[in-house]
């Protein structure tokens, strides 16, 4: 059977994955702290019919050889960790990170997750929690009688007392990974550490390469709609060209069957 049928089908499948990824990026254009995904492909198995440089006949060497590839497959996806735009919200408990690093969140199960979505609020006991109610692992509780809260660029959280005095109640730390691209996306813009990402290192914000905290700001997703739309068009065209290759192969096969009457 003509191999190009399967080769082109692998190309179409790869483009389907590409469109899926792009659609997810576009859908999350307004998700705070979302990082866009990028797929990468690799070429599949090459079949070597003839090595280059082999003798063919009469002491002649074949200069070309014959190697035909059998298509493509998705080799992996990665999160592009580029900075998203920081958008002012006016809410003190909204935290944006300018620079590298993540917030550490403790799930009710005790596991840790990492996120750049800094939409924090207070629970009934005054603790800083995410929109889903998961606690910040730094365990910061703001006293109930506080008149206000300030969070500085280095992460120090202070509560404003009745006599207009600021009392530090804790610090939001930034967690840095050796290879943030290796983090595993867990949904809800949370990530978990993997063997590839390495272990998190807790650092004070704005020190030792950790990002700076911006209170009253949220980091938007780093998805550029225009880039995604261009990628979508390219994926669609590639899909079309691959399907064309299938049609050509099919027509050639049809001609072979006509040879025998």
């Amino acid at each position, binding site marked *: 059977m*003509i*191999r*190009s049928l399967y*080769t*082109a089908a692998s*190309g179409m499948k*790869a*483009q389907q994955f590409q469109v899926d990824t792009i659609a997810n990026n576009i859908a999350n254009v307004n998700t705070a702290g979302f990082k866009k995904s990028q797929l*990468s*492909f*690799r*070429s*599949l*198995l*090459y079949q*070597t019919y003839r*090595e*280059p*440089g082999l003798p*063919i*006949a*009469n002491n002649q060497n*074949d*200069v*070309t*050889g*014959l*190697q*035909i*590839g*059998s*298509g*493509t497959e998705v*080799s*992996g996806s*990665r999160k*592009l*960790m580029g900075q998203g735009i920081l958008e002012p919200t006016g809410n003190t408990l909204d935290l944006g990170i300018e620079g590298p690093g993540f917030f550490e969140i403790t799930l009710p199960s005790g596991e840790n997750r990492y996120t750049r979505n800094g939409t924090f609020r207070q629970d009934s006991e005054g603790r800083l929690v995410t929109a889903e109610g998961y606690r910040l692992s730094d365990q910061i509780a703001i006293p109930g009688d506080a008149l206000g809260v300030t969070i500085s660029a280095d992460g120090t959280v202070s509560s404003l007392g009745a006599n207009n005095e600021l009392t530090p109640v804790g610090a939001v730390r930034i967690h840095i*990974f*050796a*290879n943030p*691209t*290796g983090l595993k996306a867990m949904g809800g813009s949370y990530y978990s550490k993997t063997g*590839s990402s*390495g*272990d998190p*290192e807790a650092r004070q914000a704005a020190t030792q390469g950790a990002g700076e905290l911006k209170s009253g700001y949220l980091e938007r997703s780093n998805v550029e709609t225009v880039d995604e739309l261009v990628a979508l068009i390219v994926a669609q065209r*590639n899909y079309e*060209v*691959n399907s*064309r*290759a299938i049609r*050509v*192969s099919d*027509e*050639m096969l049809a*001609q*072979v069957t*006509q*040879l025998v009457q």
Partner: protein
Amino acid sequence: MDVGLYRMVAAMRTNQQRVEIVASNIANAETLGFKRMLHVAHGATDWAANQGHEQVVTGTALDLQQGIFMYTGAPTDLALDGEGFFLLDGPNGEVMTRAGMFQISAEGVLTSADGSPVVWEGSRGRIDPTGGEVKFAGNGQVIQGGQPIGRLKLVNVERAGDVVVDSDGRYTLRSGAEYIDSEVTVNQGFLERANVQTVDELVEMIAAQRSFEMASQTFKLISESYQRLNR
């Protein structure tokens, strides 16, 4: 039997392989650092003493032309401008690649996307993964926090024929060939796309299809003339 029949079969086979090669190029239009395969047909004139057996033989050659750059801004994305390759320590020995989507492992080793360490000039440099900003200079020099920590090995081959694609689509050196020095420049924050132009591939595919059609029509013609003779 008429040699024409065999010639036509050879022509059909070579054009079928041509379509297979084109299909593989098209399928890899989005594969980073991919280099398209060219279809090279040549007559095997000395194939047999009898010139009547002259047939067409298919060959492939790697087209090492530059692919266009795509900006990503990621500090460990490197694209090569010019002729040359990065070297990777693959599981089965050294391989060449132009897919510069690298990452820094937790141990500070610069690796390819599938975890093969990148080969450095001399001993392998260690990049502090949580340290300062890493810069890659045009000549492959790696600088972290203003301090040079080594140079990536960049190699070139004398001609495209020295590059063999292994069964996994990685580039290896043909046995007997040697690396030569490379003048290639490293561009940080970019990736090199495949050098596949879908328009060119489509044209090639249509041409192959028509050649195949002509060969099969000629085959039919010869075959019918024998039928008339037999009547």
